[in-house]
């Protein structure tokens, strides 16, 4: 992030934020015309997060969106028509009408995993994507998003803990927009900074102004490269606000007016425009051009979407199972010698080495790697779990939320 962005990059970020907003504005119109099937979610005011973070990914990297990450899909290369058609349940949509909203993926080209509605479930799934990429030698990073509300799910915990144990190249963006449907964040999570969730897994975390696209981008970039370098998963908390209701049907009267006003004054696109203008990266003409480009594109994309048919009824019957090679040729893309992971090359001793205590299961002090035998060095920072027990009371004093055991009791412990 030290290096400044190119002019093109600065403008890309602007373009995608505008595109994100324009796509969603057009969908609101379609919704009012009753052309959207089911609910419609909005990321108004959160565009900097989707765009800034997804822009930090390389083409080979993987992402999985949540409901408010249309912007990330657009950055990754999804066409607006696909977004429209998903919401209109059209036959030419990525899921051919079988699912809606941002529920679609692309395994082969864009490397997008489809979400399901159940919050948090993408976290272990993207951990698996990250682990598989590493195993295949692809040096990819996997990214997904979660809400303040979603961070209360059990699968958030299981997934992030597993990613941390495995040091998976995985970046999780926690969009703290202060509300989960009608529930304010402090009824959801008793923390001021949700980044503190990371402390339960010993992983790195960042807190970023979610309405600042440059901050989002640069932080995500740093995190992505850290993860790629093998430093393990990273949690980024983006502080922001959900400007619309949970979905179109929700007037969100439970949100204090003053709160909404406060955040409306901090619109991420307006803030970024000010910056671009101040840095002479954008003037009225440039802005006009971008607007026209987007308008022209979206009119075409919407027309395409509107003209696409609904799926034929009998299509409902098809596709529950993959029928084999004729349906999908499943091939792992190896970017390392397969011989590295096939016998007898990878024979190891099945022992645990516990720092300070040698190793178990017979073979004595052998230094079997704990983490990944062949591709990763054994962990060098010893956890010293065993030893820490006796030193615990002293160490504990340094922690903020951990109280030291009363000295008398701990003295007794050590006699």
């Amino acid at each position, binding site marked *: 992030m030290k290096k400044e962005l190119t002019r093109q990059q600065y403008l890309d970020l602007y373009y995608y934020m505008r595109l994100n907003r324009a796509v969603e504005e057009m969908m609101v119109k379609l919704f009012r015309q009753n052309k959207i099937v089911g609910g419609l979610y909005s990321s108004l005011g959160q565009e900097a997060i989707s765009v800034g973070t997804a822009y930090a990914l390389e083409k080979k990297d993987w992402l999985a969106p949540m409901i408010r990450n249309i912007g990330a899909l657009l950055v990754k290369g999804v066409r607006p028509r696909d977004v429209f058609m998903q919401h209109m349940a059209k036959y030419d949509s990525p899921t051919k*009408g*079988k*699912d809606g909203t941002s529920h679609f993926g692309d395994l082969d080209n864009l490397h997008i995993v489809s979400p399901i509605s159940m919050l948090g479930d993408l976290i272990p799934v993207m951990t698996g994507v990250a682990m598989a990429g590493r195993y295949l030698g692809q040096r990819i990073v996997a990214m997904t998003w979660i809400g303040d509300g979603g961070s209360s799910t059990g699968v958030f915990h299981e997934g992030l803990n597993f990613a941390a144990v495995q040091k998976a190249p995985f970046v999780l963006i926690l969009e703290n927009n202060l509300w*989960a*449907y009608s529930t304010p964040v402090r009824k959801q999570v008793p923390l001021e900074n949700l980044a503190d969730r990371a402390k339960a897994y010993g992983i790195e975390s960042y807190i970023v102004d979610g309405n600042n696209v440059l901050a989002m981008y640069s932080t995500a970039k740093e995190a992505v490269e850290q993860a790629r370098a093998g430093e393990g998963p990273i949690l980024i908390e983006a502080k922001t606000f959900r400007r619309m209701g949970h979905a179109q049907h929700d007037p969100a009267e439970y949100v204090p007016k003053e709160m909404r006003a406060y955040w409306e004054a901090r619109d991420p696109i307006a803030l970024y425009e000010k910056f671009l203008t101040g840095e002479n990266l954008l003037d009225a003409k440039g802005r006009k051009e971008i607007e026209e480009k987007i308008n022209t594109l979206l009119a075409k994309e919407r027309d395409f979407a509107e003209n696409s048919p609904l799926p034929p*009824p009998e299509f*409902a*019957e098809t596709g529950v199972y993959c029928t084999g090679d004729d349906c999908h040729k499943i091939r792992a893309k190896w970017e390392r010698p397969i011989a590295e992971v096939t016998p007898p090359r990878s024979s190891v001793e099945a022992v645990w080495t516990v720092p300070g205590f040698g190793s178990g299961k017979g073979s004595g002090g052998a230094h079997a790697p704990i983490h990944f035998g062949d591709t990763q060095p054994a962990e060098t920072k010893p956890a010293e779990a065993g030893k820490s027990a006796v030193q615990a009371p002293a160490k504990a004093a340094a922690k903020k939320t951990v109280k030291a055991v009363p000295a008398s009791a701990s003295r007794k412990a050590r006699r």
Partner: protein
Amino acid sequence: MPGTNGSAPSGTQVTFLEAIKQAMFEEMERDPAVILMGEDVGVYGGAFKTSEGILERFGWERVIDTPISESAMIGAACGMSYLGLRPIVEMQFIDFIVCAFNQITNFVAKGHYLWNAPAPMVVRGPSGGGVHGGPFHSANPEMYFVHTPGLKVIYPSTPYDAKGLLKAAVRDNNPVLFFEHKFLYRRIKGELPAGDYTVPIGKAVVRRQGKHLTIISYAAMTHTSLEAGEALAKEGIEAEVVDLRTLLPLDEETILNSVKKTNKCLVVHEDTKTGGIAGEIAAILCEKAFGDLDGPLMRVTSLDTPVPYAPTLEEYFLPNAKKIFSAAKELARY
């Protein structure tokens, strides 16, 4: 929307949804041990507004807006029930009940059998398709729980039953799963009696008398079956329509009585086919009314697929009156 106490003056037609709200209001007034818990059930009044006004009336202690943690809700409700409370837990959509599957099937369902601990609690929420909710907001998960001894499973079709059965569920000493078909919420109305009443758990009801065949159904499909019944009547086929109302325990008596009378049976459910309750009914009939069947047991159900999103697909996926009509006609020919 009725007065603040949640009950309508008698003679008024109320919606299915209103009936559920009334049941919760009245049970919470009757018994301070009854509390309500779920995502957005308090200030917002529930995603479908089923609990609108309940927080205002009963306060923050008895109406708990929870984090997005289905296992925590179910677990906590179970713990509360051990101290004599009778919690009602709302799943925002019943689809999310699978996020607490272990808690329900292992902790909640087995406690009374294993260590004599009753868990009087109700888990309720909007279920079913037909409103283009897509694959994760249209679930009919009843069979997962019908196959779990220790639970009771209710799936009503009318405002009267919804209110009376929800009240019975709250008063039951066992854990009860209560499914509310969201297609019915605002589409189906009915008159409710003025006073307190319950509908007994475990009793089916004959919604239409007939002699040529029996159509067994429940929830939204009861209405679809009745619609088919009218069409069949025009062709001289009198279908008896049984509404199961409770799926566990199943009312074998009403099922057997009807089939012994009509000698033919068609089961209709919105749940997917393989492993649906039609199978269980088939087995019961084969065991206990084998000689009474004059024709094959038939099934009209949803397809064995996830619930698709596009209206064209969902319509094809779901049973409807036409499909029931055809099947019944074929069956009547035997």
